[in-house]
């Protein structure tokens, strides 16, 4: 299954590259915007149907209740800690690196936001690091699910409510739908606030990194 996903990703990447740099066949927003949103909405609809038809899934959520919100908070805490550790390992600015991490995988938010606060280079890092979080989640889901049923949800971060959700549900089962979606939802909502809160802790003393 993962080889089809990999093939689709690579074909998409090549097609997108050729379209942008060689011969424009379609306006890229038709594929990376409209087609992506349409397929995502269709998948969410189908996942909703499958979830509600499964009685076990619903009783599981009833049992868990609001405690399920502990999951995104644990992911947020883990991600922020990972930002501190990354900065120490790479020897780059701690505040900016932690702000980059605090996008939780939402690169279209983190890139522009971090760029505004810390400059274009950090914006590029914010975009790339969060995009890689999404990509690695997709590529490692079959391994991750062996570690823990909820590991792909944790890995996906904010993307667990949209782009990585279909793959998470596919590998981890219909009963993970609400956990994954609500976790991604909460992380998406707190992402801009945590980025700005972390950024307010300090200015970058040295804009040159790497």
């Amino acid at each position, binding site marked *: 299954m993962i080889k089809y*996903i990999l093939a*689709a*990703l690579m074909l*998409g*990447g090549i097609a997108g590259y*050729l*379209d*942008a740099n060689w011969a424009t066949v379609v306006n890229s927003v038709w*594929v*990376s915007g409209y*087609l*992506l949103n349409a*397929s*995502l*909405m269709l*998948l*969410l*609809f*189908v*996942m*909703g*149907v*499958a*979830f*509600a*038809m499964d009685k076990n899934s619903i009783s599981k959520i009833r049992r*868990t209740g609001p*405690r399920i919100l502990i*999951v995104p908070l*644990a*992911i947020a*805490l*883990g991600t922020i*800690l990972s*930002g501190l550790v*990354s900065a120490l*390992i*790479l020897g780059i600015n701690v505040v900016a*690196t932690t702000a980059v991490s605090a996008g939780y995988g939402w690169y279209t938010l983190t890139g522009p936001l971090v760029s505004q606060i810390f400059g274009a280079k950090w914006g*590029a*890092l914010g*975009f*790339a*690091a969060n*995009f*890689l979080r999404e990509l690695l989640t997709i590529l490692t889901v079959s391994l*991750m699910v062996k*570690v*823990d*049923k909820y*590991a792909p949800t*944790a*890995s996906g971060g904010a993307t667990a*409510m*949209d782009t990585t959700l*279909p793959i998470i549900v*596919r590998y981890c089962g219909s009963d993970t739908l609400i*956990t994954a979606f609500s976790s991604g*939802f909460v992380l998406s909502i707190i992402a801009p606030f945590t980025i700005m809160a972390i950024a307010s802790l300090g200015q970058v003393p040295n804009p040159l990194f*790497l």
Partner: protein
Amino acid sequence: MNFALLVVPLVAGMFLGYFLREKRKVNLGKATFGIILVLIFSLGFGIGSNSELLNSLPDVGLSAVVIASLAIVFSVVLVKAVKRTAGLE
């Protein structure tokens, strides 16, 4: 990202599924996987056509890999740690 765009189809699907539950089981597996591949293709397309991202990768790529990998590892470890408290399994 427009939240309504995601929540509306999900809730609509749940309503339909709720009313279908007494009916026969429907297997949506194959069709769903086809749409997943379309989603992944368009995701790849967005990356491939984003010259700004591709050009920045040689500069920030290594740092990005470290930041993304550690974020994943730390998140997984913490979720595993609170799983029981969250009432999952």
